[in-house]
């Protein structure tokens, strides 16, 4: 195979083994089942009074994080196998940035809202 056709080369040509790890049908089916379960759970929590009202957003956030984890593992096949350690590390860094951006923004803006409330709004002493 000449150099200009290098991009056509089969993967994993060293040693002849293909690197095309194929997830099984059952993996996707389990992922789908768990995702449906968590989705239905989220909608159900909102429509019933099972959980104490102010706790519902926390419950929904927990279910959402769980479902995103399910998607990562069963659909995107993120594991800690050697081929995947770099992917997992990059994800950890991404989550750090996401956490800083979201929680940092909400935290700072919430404080600005309470401390710099315009005159006329009864927001306690100092406003």
């Amino acid at each position, binding site marked *: 195979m000449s150099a200009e056709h290098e*991009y*056509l*080369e*089969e*993967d*994993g*040509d*060293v040693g002849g083994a293909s*690197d*095309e790890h*194929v*997830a*099984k*049908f059952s993996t*996707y089916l389990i*992922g*789908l089942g768990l*995702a*449906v379960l968590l*989705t239905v759970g*989220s*909608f159900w*929590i*909102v*429509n019933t009074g099972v959980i104490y*009202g102010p706790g*519902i*957003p926390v419950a*929904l*956030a927990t*279910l*959402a994080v769980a*479902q*995103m984890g399910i*998607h*990562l593992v069963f*659909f*995107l096949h993120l594991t800690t*196998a*050697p*081929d995947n*350690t*770099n*992917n997992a590390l*990059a*994800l950890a*860094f*991404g989550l750090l*940035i*996401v956490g800083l*951006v*979201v929680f*940092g*923004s*909400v935290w700072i*803006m919430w404080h600005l809202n309470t401390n710099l409330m315009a005159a006329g709004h009864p927001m306690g002493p100092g406003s």
Partner: protein
Amino acid sequence: MSAADTTIAVRDPYHVGHAGESRARGHGGGGPASRRVVVGYGFWLFLLSDIVIFSCLFAAYAVLAGATADGPSSKQIYDLNRVAWETGCLLASSFFCGMASIAVARRSQILTQVTLLITGLLGVAFILLEISEFAALHAKGDGPTRSAFLTGFFTLVGCHGLHVTVGLLWLGTMMAQLFAKGFRADIRRRFLCFTMFWHFLDIIWVAIFSLVYLVGTKL
């Protein structure tokens, strides 16, 4: 298996490279990582940067969610029935995208095309539902210019919808390329990136339907 291989297999069963002469690839001992792993890693980095962009939009929405400027609040405009249908469409679409990657691995042209078509149709259904929601809001005068809350809402959800639309174009391209060029190694790497993108869109949607729509009806 030679005696040395057996020793490594015992001391380092998961090929993480702790046994000295690891045979894991991409870690020095076993040679460079395969092209497929490198391509997947690069695209994963792109997806993570996209997640960071979405996190900025989520943060903006969270900050502005209460700034309704006497306009409608989230409780008044969210229709959970439609959101449930949208969620179902996108989840099923993600599942069929997984089926398509199995079909590609089995080199079955007909199965690949059929599963990708179902994936695409479910994606189109999702987009149509979203457009009908946006159009209804706009018709009532509750467009993105009505309040800061609606600006944040349209930007966040609209950005996801735009991603799905671009994904649908990519999906059509992949169907054509897989059909015309067959299961070449480079086409399969391209297809791997597409499946990652499509699953990633569903992950973003999970955050949107939980933290925007469901939480919004309770605030």
